[in-house]
């Protein structure tokens, strides 16, 4: 049996890939069904927390997508979530416009700014993007507080206009985030199978081959940042609506790093269960450790390192295990 594990023939690899496509679909379906009935089983506060989990999962997905398809790391995704959240918040609180108009606007703004930020570092090694996003994350709270006429400054904004009039607000906040998460996950799964997604992956893994096939690396870099920025803005939109308030406290530098930690904890997964794991980590850990605030960064740091080292040593351990079983 051990030979099967070490030498994968082409046929087997196609088979495993097929089986891995089929099962995640089923698990995701079961998971979604379970999540749809959740509000009827849980109390109001848990429903609220789960809604936030879904919203944060979208943000984790945005960061993971950038790592997976772009090979780049962003520690400034709070910029995009803030962009999305404040487009919801400002349109709602200042102009009374509901989500039907503000969510598309958030998406548009996210994509546009993602492209704008990727542009200056289009030709360069990925670390330049990382450093730019570091500056971005540190600039976000400053911008929010200084545009207080629009954003409400420290006090923030309250999102109260219902998405579907007549439905209970608590349910709406929950289901809106869930639906957004499912849509985004589905779209990302389709992206993997699309021509664009393949081209992006090729440009990341084999740049020279991608050039030969006519995929420009600059295009790949910029478009993946645009997509990721757009998803980040949708995360912000879901956070604003599900969390009911938008305030600078949700878009600090640490929040940006926590999104990245969530992405690492889910092993940069793009499937619904993995993304939910990351989102739950980002949402629940601060709540569980809220009594001992200083332990939160330590815990996040340890989780980040633990996952990275696990990802590094796991294949080696597995190989050693199979070698031991081979001997015996």
């Amino acid at each position, binding site marked *: 049996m051990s030979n099967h594990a070490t030498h994968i023939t082409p046929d087997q690899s196609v088979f495993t890939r097929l089986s891995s496509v089929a099962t995640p679909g089923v698990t995701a379906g079961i998971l979604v069904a379970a999540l749809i009935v959740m509000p009827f089983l849980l109390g109001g506060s848990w429903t609220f927390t789960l809604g936030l989990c879904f919203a944060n999962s979208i943000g984790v997905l945005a960061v993971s997508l950038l*790592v997976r398809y772009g*090979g*780049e*790391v962003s*520690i400034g995704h709070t910029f995009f979530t803030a962009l999305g959240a404040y487009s919801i918040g400002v349109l709602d609180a200042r102009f009374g416009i509901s989500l039907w108009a503000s969510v598309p606007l958030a998406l548009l703004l996210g994509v546009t700014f993602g492209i704008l*930020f990727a*542009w*200056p*570092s289009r*030709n*360069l*090694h*990925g*670390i*330049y993007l*990382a*450093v*730019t996003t*570091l*500056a*971005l994350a*540190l*600039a976000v709270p*400053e*911008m929010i*507080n*200084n545009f207080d006429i629009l954003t409400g400054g420290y006090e923030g904004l309250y999102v109260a206009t219902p998405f579907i009039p007549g439905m209970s607000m608590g349910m709406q906040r929950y289901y809106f985030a869930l639906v957004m998460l499912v849509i985004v996950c589905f779209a990302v799964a389709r992206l993997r199978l699309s021509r664009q997604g393949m081209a992006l992956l090729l440009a990341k893994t084999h740049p020279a081959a991608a050039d030969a096939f006519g995929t420009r*690396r*600059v295009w790949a870099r910029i478009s993946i940042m645009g997509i990721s920025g757009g998803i980040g803005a949708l995360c912000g939109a879901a956070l604003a609506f599900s969390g009911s308030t938008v305030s600078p406290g949700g878009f600090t530098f640490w929040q940006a*790093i926590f999104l*990245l*930690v969530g992405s*690492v904890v889910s092993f940069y997964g793009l499937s619904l269960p993995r993304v939910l794991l990351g989102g739950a980590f980002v949402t629940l850990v601060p709540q569980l450790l809220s009594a001992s*605030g*200083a*332990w*939160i*960064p*330590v*815990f*996040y*740091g*340890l*989780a*980040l*390192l633990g996952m*990275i*080292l696990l*990802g*590094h*040593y796991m294949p080696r351990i597995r190989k050693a295990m199979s070698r031991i079983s081979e001997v015996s």
Partner: protein
Amino acid sequence: MSFWDSLIYDLFPLIWSGTITGCLYALGALGLVMIFKCSKVVNFSHGNVAGLTAFLVYGLSSGVLMSLSWGAAVLLAMLAAVAIAFLIYSIISPVVFESDLTSTIATLGFGLIAQGITLLVFGADIVALDLPIPRFAMSVLGLLVTGYDLTVLVVAIATIGALFIVIDYTKLGIAFRAISENPFAAEVCGLNLKSVHYFAWITAAILGVIGALLIVPTTFLSVTTVATFMLQAFAAAVIGGFASLPGALIGGILVGVMMNLFTFYVSPEYSSTFLLGAILVALNIFPNGILQKVGGTRV
């Protein structure tokens, strides 16, 4: 006449003090660039670790942990910085040779831990940490030069000078440059990549401690001050090209002067936004740093 007055009374002092703080940003940036040049890792934990060691100096000299003399406290903090750098690199070194992206993310984890430890041990309070230097001020050509300015200048020049001498003339420095140029060829020639990486990480940590200790008297010491100081260092490194040590020095001074002019003439509230703008503009105009000719980009 008033234009010249404002030039003499505002602009020159601003440029002077900007140069002084710029030297400190350069110290931070040099550490980042040294680490990046040889191990291709962007060390995001730099600021938080430097902040932790600055707090250690405070804790050891003020009686929070111990009441030692300032010099002994600095020495112990330096040792701690070296130990931390050694530990960080030892933990991530297997990952460094596999993926620079993953190891860059790992440094964020160390940054979080350093931040958390600082919070746990010293709390979120703001403390004052001064340098034991004589307080004097003199006027040179209309500029007010303080003892602090001179100390910073002397320490920065001495440190940076020593660094460049080590890199240019010692065997270790040659090994460092060889590995930065071509790690594979250097390894084939019998150089030990890891030991040179250790050298870079430890030197960077020491530079970070020196920078943090010198910057703290101008602000105050809190959990976030040194970390935000490092944003300036990152900006300096980017403007200098992230792979050039002289570039980092010039970038640091440029950032220091520009920040000073911006906060004085425009607004002190948008300093991070300004840095963001500066990074973006610099990446567009000099993609490989100010010392490189445009056109050599990797497309």
